[in-house]
């Protein structure tokens, strides 16, 4: 394998990992507040179609991105109403969100199938992109890739070094104690869920505005679910989310790489690689339950309402 090829593969890995990174960062914040939102896939699809519609109608990529994020937030508020206000089962509410989002996005998106837009284009960063290897891998991408890296830094700093991050984690570990200390538990959870929605929407918009740029029904192809696995894989820590996202990104382009080598494997079999990798990674990680349990936000998945 030539060095050029490796650089190309790494660059493609970053691009393929970006939507996973964005949605997983949102879900990380959401889960740290104790709320498990299985609706990522639905929110991403809605974000993708809203983003595409925004650009199609206005011609402005900014409008598309905002539309995608706003649609994601809207979906997440529906989930929040059920899972936080009504204290419904979070698993069921999340599944409902995915089923609803899949249906709604397909319905809204029917008119956009086969349409084209001018998506995000590469925006090399001056000087930095000239660095050998590192330049093309990290600094020769579209704007949203850089945004995703900025988001990663923001989430990392927020969780580790800010008062807000501390409050968020307190709510996630024990809503009861947080409430006793006078924290607005439900509000904090709503904010966390909305952030997750915004990120899922942005991630979906990335797919329909930068990655392809097209709208097709069910175009997220399970990325929302993979992101959920990714957060478990990362044991709820941002740095591992970043590494994991690129690992899964690599898995999702591996079939292109192998085809490039002239391996004669059916494309359908190769297409299942990212899912197989996800299962294998889950097995490797979950084999030691204590390790996972140590890092799991304690109240995750449990609906909580103030007793008063």
């Amino acid at each position, binding site marked *: 394998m030539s060095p050029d090829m490796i650089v190309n593969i790494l660059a493609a890995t970053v691009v393929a990992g970006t939507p996973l990174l964005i949605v997983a960062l949102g879900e990380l914040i959401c889960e740290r507040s104790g709320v498990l939102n299985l609706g990522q896939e639905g929110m991403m699809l809605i974000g993708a179609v809203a983003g595409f519609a925004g650009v199609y109608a206005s011609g402005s990529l900014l409008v598309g991105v905002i539309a995608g994020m706003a649609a994601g937030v809207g979906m997440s508020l529906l989930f929040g109403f059920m899972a936080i206000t009504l204290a419904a*089962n979070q698993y*069921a509410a999340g599944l409902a969100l995915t089923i609803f989002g899949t249906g709604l996005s397909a319905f809204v998106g029917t008119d956009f199938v086969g349409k084209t837009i001018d998506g995000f284009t590469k925006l090399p960063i001056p000087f930095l992109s000239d660095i050998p290897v590192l330049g093309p891998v990290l600094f020769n991408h579209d704007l949203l890739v850089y945004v995703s890296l900025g988001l990663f830094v923001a989430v990392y700093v927020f969780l580790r070094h800010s008062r807000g991050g501390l409050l968020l984690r307190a709510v996630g570990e024990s809503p009861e104690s947080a409430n006793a200390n006078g924290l607005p538990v439900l509000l904090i959870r709503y904010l966390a869920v909305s952030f997750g929605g915004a990120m899922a929407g942005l991630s979906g918009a990335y797919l329909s505005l930068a990655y392809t740029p097209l709208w097709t029904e069910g175009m997220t192809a399970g990325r929302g679910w993979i992101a959920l696995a990714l957060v478990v894989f990362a044991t709820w820590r941002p740095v591992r989310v970043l590494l994991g996202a690129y690992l899964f990104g690599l898995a999702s382009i591996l079939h292109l790489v192998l085809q490039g080598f002239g391996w004669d494997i059916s494309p359908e079999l190769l297409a299942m690689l990212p899912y197989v990798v996800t299962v294998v990674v889950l097995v490797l990680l979950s084999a030691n339950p204590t390790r996972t349990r140590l890092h799991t936000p304690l109240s995750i998945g449990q609906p909580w309402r103030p007793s008063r």
Partner: protein
Amino acid sequence: MLSLERRQVDSRLMEYLSPVLALVLTVITGFLIFLGLDRDPVEGLRLFFIVPISDAVGVAELGLKAAPLLLCAAGLTICYRARIWNIGAEGHFLMGAVGATIAALHFGEGTGFWILPVVLLAGIACGALWSAIAAFLKTHFHCNEILTTIMLNYIALNLLLYAVHGPLKDPYGFSFPQSAMFGDAALLPMLIPGTRLHIGLLFALLAAVAVGVLFARTFIGFQLKVLGEDHKAAEFAGFPRKRLVWFAFLVAGGLAGLAGASEVTGPIGQLIPQVSPGYGYTAIIVVFMGRMKAVGLILASALLALTFLGGEMMQIGMNLPKAMTGLFQGLLLFYLLTCDAFIHYRIRLTRRHVTASAGTNTPLATQES
């Protein structure tokens, strides 16, 4: 202001009223959607909910769509009662279809009454085998079953695509990605002549009743229920958790596999990539709508089957996208969960200002409000 208050006792009435309310709210929302699309809402709802079942052929089609939903939902009910979040029915279904196809193609044009049972058993076995993977990963590696089953769904879909593009492809099929047509001995007998309704519906009804009996009359059903409601209690009682998990997965996989096998040996008669319009996912809604009870499951599977027919009718009658099906299904589950909250909670009109200050009349009390 309005506030939610925990009920002392869960409301039985709301438990049964909730699916009905959800349907009513879905229909109202549908009305508004048609208005928003500038279409006649009454005509739209009539086309979606009534026209598809206005004649005998339509009712038979309803049964045809309800059968796989009910089979999948019956199996999922066993899992969900035990709080095992198996969302892999779609994958079990697809593998069942592939397994049955392998058997059916093996027998070709052969004759014999035993061919059909063997073909169906192959489907059941493949479905159960597929769910066994998730069961194994859960009991031995503590993997979250939601994530493993959804991944296995995607893997199964790709295996199906591989099969129809590769080893199971009809050599004389003009390179269409589909298997050869099955021999007559591998096809399910018809239930009503002149329609496409086959005896798969009987399997489904039987499965629903069997699941009802399992939970009402058997010890294993009781153990599953306890496991779901309080897994610590199940542990103290010495119930075999792993074995129960395996039981739930294998039965769910087998039933969904049978659904897949019935689909290829029934209305389709061959393996095609679009063998499932998402039956395995819709079955999740059936379980929740049907309150995990036999009669409820049967009614709910008919309703959800209607959403498939209604979606097709939308396309034909109003030139609206078929995706209307998914939209209505999502709405239904959404409203159901919302209404379900009122099983445990009631809405209270509270006027804190008045009550708080009337009692104590201290500055503190007014501040609190």
